[in-house]
């Protein structure tokens, strides 16, 4: 397929941030994913932020039912989906009024004119047509397009009913957006062919709508020029686009292969973790067994059962389900069996904001079990990083015979980014040995320990090593039930030391920027991109700012204390009310300033920049004080 070429002027820009917003049923998520993939294939760096309501079919036309997809694509390396929008596509009034604030002055607003009528105004609870507001013309470039009408015309030859025909209008919008940003139609045409292979008339109609959208851009007088974003200078290699949950699933399978284990995944559906199940269950031919349990308690317990049997066992959920797993996790810890527990965090408390992102389960992950039950806790920093974190979690789990918790979040899980395609030969093997026994071997010590304080992983079926494990406190070595006070103290210390010692074996915390200075920004999890971008921007503006992003939260790398003490001000930025800050202050006795947000939304770079600038100025003020 020869790519279409515009005959209008093309203006080259370094990056574009677009948001596509419409009703939940308008297919905005599909449009967004297609634009993302197409842009990645064009060699741009991309970052995405899908944002949708928790209801599957939220009341049509209402503000609550608006579904949005934001993507930034750029010719330079980017780490966030962008703060303010260069362009906003809205399919109805509700989408317009809920998103317009994020459009930058002078930005392009493309509206589906046909979606703006009295009925829709009522549903969106607006008095009059928001497109008629006087200020609009002065502030934005508005392009009204009768998308529904034009789509119907474009697909008329296929004789589809109006309802079906109207469903093609997201492809019309897509075509127009592709024209505006000089994108090739080819990847989406391939997608349409594959997706609707069994419904050729629908495939043809969607293709016609896509092409009509492109042609509209080319012919309408509303657009004098289109925009072009050149390929980014990524490191040489073969790339693909990957979503967080997908990367996590693939990382788990990779870990199972390099450790020569079959993967067992026990879970109960919950947003935003379910996609890991949907992904893993496709890969039974990789030896993956998925078990959709009756609840999260059964999910974690089945995982422990599989771990006892010698499998690589994993369970995942989100906050409410992790709360249910608490007792099971404590058992996994005291049994000293390896497994992975994943929390894809969402807005809390309780059912909270299921489809929104937040980092408010850090303390739950660290301490959310009865008794003293420390677990290693890791957090991926981006969608692609989920792959590496999954492998690392399994490595630590088997090395220490302990359940390892991964804290992902909704932003990472649903977000996507281009990544260099991993290779199996690039992953270090994980060596696991199960002790052998014979009928007459010496009494087996199921709680004997190696240099990492890990106990042997003897599995049922091994002659001579029959033993019983359980949740009652056990005597070190023999594993027999023990109520001895000194033994309980010893075991509690031992289990804590086992986790703490991991700090000796993980990499030292790296930082971007100088090792000492005015301000250190500390972050963890999905806020990496925004914090990294904000710190770099401030540094470029002459501030003395560095950034440390933690992937290991328990234990933390051994040089954290020293790092914190090397800066005049420490900012801890997180999407909660200060949980990492609490841990850092308690552990290192360093004052930390919280930058916190609990709105179910990621940080914008702008809000972080202003927080950094404020502390940078304060740090300078402090030193002037000291000097005088």
């Amino acid at each position: 397929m020869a790519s279409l070429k515009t005959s209008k002027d093309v203006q080259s820009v370094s990056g574009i941030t677009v948001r596509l917003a419409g009703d939940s049923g308008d297919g905005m998520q599909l449009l967004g994913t297609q634009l993302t993939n197409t842009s990645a294939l064009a060699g741009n760096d991309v970052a995405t932020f899908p944002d949708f309501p928790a209801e599957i079919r939220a009341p049509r036309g209402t503000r609550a039912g608006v579904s949005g997809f934001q993507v930034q694509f750029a010719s330079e390396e980017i780490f966030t989906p962008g703060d303010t929008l260069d362009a906003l596509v809205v399919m109805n009034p509700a989408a317009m009024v809920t998103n317009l604030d994020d459009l930058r002055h002078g930005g392009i607003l493309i509206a589906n004119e046909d979606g703006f009528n009295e009925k829709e105004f009522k549903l969106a609870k607006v008095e009059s047509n928001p497109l008629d507001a006087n200020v609009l013309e002065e502030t934005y470039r508005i392009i009204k397009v009768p998308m529904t009408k034009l789509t119907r015309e474009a697909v008329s030859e296929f004789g589809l009913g109006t309802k079906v025909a109207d469903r093609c209008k997201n492809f019309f919008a897509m075509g127009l957006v592709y024209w505006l940003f000089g994108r090739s139609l080819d990847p989406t045409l391939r997608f349409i062919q594959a997706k609707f292979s069994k419904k050729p008339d629908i495939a043809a109609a969607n293709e016609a709508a896509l092409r009509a959208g492109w042609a509209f851009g080319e012919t309408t007088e509303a657009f004098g020029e289109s925009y072009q974003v050149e390929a980014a200078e990524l490191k040489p290699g073969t790339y693909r686009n990957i979503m967080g949950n997908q990367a996590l699933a693939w990382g788990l399978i990779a870990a199972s292969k390099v450790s020569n284990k079959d993967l067992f995944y026990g879970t109960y559906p919950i947003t935003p973790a379910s996609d890991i199940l949907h992904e893993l269950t496709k890969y039974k031919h990789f030896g993956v067994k998925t078990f959709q349990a009756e609840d999260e308690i059964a999910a974690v317990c089945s995982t422990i059962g599989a771990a006892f049997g010698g499998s690589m066992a994993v369970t995942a959920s989100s906050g409410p389900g992790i709360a249910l797993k608490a007792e099971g996790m404590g058992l996994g810890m005291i049994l000293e069996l390896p497994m992975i527990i994943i929390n894809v965090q969402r807005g809390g408390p309780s059912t909270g904001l299921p489809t929104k992102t937040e980092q408010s389960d850090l303390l739950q992950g660290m301490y959310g079990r009865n008794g003293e039950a420390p677990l290693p806790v890791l957090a991926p920093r981006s969608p692609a990083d989920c792959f590496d974190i999954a492998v690392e979690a399994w490595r630590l789990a088997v090395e220490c015979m302990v359940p390892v918790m991964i804290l992902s979040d909704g932003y990472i899980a649903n977000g996507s980014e281009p990544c260099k395609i991993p290779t199996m030969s690039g992953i270090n093997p994980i060596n696991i040995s199960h002790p052998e026994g014979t009928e007459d071997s010496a009494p087996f010590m199921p709680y004997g320990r190696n240099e990492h304080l890990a106990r042997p992983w003897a599995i049922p079926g091994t002659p001579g090593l029959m033993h019983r494990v359980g949740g009652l406190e056990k005597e070190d070595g023999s594993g027999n039930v023990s109520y001895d006070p000194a033994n309980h103290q010893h075991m509690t210390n031992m289990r804590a030391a086992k986790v703490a010692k991991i700090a000796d074996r993980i990499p030292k915390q790296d930082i971007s920027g100088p090792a000492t200075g005015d301000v250190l920004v500390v972050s963890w999890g999905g806020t990496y991109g925004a914090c990294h971008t904000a710190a770099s921007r401030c540094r470029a503006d002459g501030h003395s700012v560095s950034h440390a992003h933690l992937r290991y939260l328990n234990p933390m790398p051994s040089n954290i204390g020293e790092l914190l003490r090397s800066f005049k001000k420490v900012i801890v930025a997180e999407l909660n009310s200060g949980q990492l800050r609490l841990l850092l202050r308690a552990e290192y006795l360093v004052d930390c300033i919280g930058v916190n947000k609990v709105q179910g939304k990621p940080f914008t770079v702008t809000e972080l920049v202003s927080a950094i600038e404020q502390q940078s100025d304060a740090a300078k003020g402090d030193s002037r004080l000291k000097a005088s």
Partner: protein
Amino acid sequence: MSTLPVLKPADFASDQDVRWCPGCGDYSILAQMKKVLPELGFPREKTVFISGIGCSSRFPYYMNTYGMHSIHGRAPAFATGLKTTRPELMVWVITGDGDALSIGGNHFIHALRRNLDINIVLFNNRIYGLTKGQYSPTSVEGQVTKSTPMGSIDHPLSPLSVALAAEATFVARSIDAHVKHLGETLKRAASHKGASLVEVYQNCNVFNDGAMAYAQERKQRADNVVELEHGKPLVFANGTKGIRLVGTHLEIVNTSEVPADDLLIHDEKDPNPSIHMMMARMSYPAMPEPIGVLRAVEGIPTYDDQINDQVATATEAKGAGDLDALFSSGDTWTVE
């Protein structure tokens, strides 16, 4: 071919001291289990006991096999993870009436309806033993316990009815004191392919002594218990009384007064659980209570077989998965 060593009951005893109260019915169940396992000729190291929490759930500590004393009510869920990943193991779940029917009701139902190939032994003493004597879901109405000083107002639940409602493929009941029957019933449960439930009437002589004496005591048993046998009529009271199906309910008749073929003939293999359910609902004192195998339906696929079959089928159809190929599937691009 090597022959398996012949094991004795003592070979199945662990080195741990048994800590149930003297006279507790749990001892008898432990003794029968140790007696039956060698008869099955299954390797010890491939045998696993998983329990929840309760007096009864201490059981795994006393068996020289693999074992896990887990958390309250969840033993079937642990067993699910173990059995699906290690189908060659023989997995027993040991549970109590509180463990299986209160906190663990959910897992109990789901393990049974999935027909996971495990054996669940439910020690029913109609009381919470370990927590010192509160009423349980099987305690009778009006029962005075520590937590029901004016008598229990809960309607009791029958584990057999619950299991049948979940269409469990093997459902049986036995009695701690009826040792021969108990041993035979455990053996049958072990040889059933699919989920088996054995409810055992177990005397808690400390907190609920004699609650099931009508069935446990040899003298009373004949009048109050029907020993089920496949293909045989339901008779009790030394053959003087029998059970007849009239319309949709069961009634007691004097065997001398009705023709022999009027009596209900037990069919444990009937795929339809309706009559098994009627039997499960026979309860003292209005009716004698059935013991033995109520239901044993073979040939239903087990969950563990099916989950493994899907892996095998997928591997056969697609070939063993190639991760490098997966990683580079779909749209990719190369930066020079």
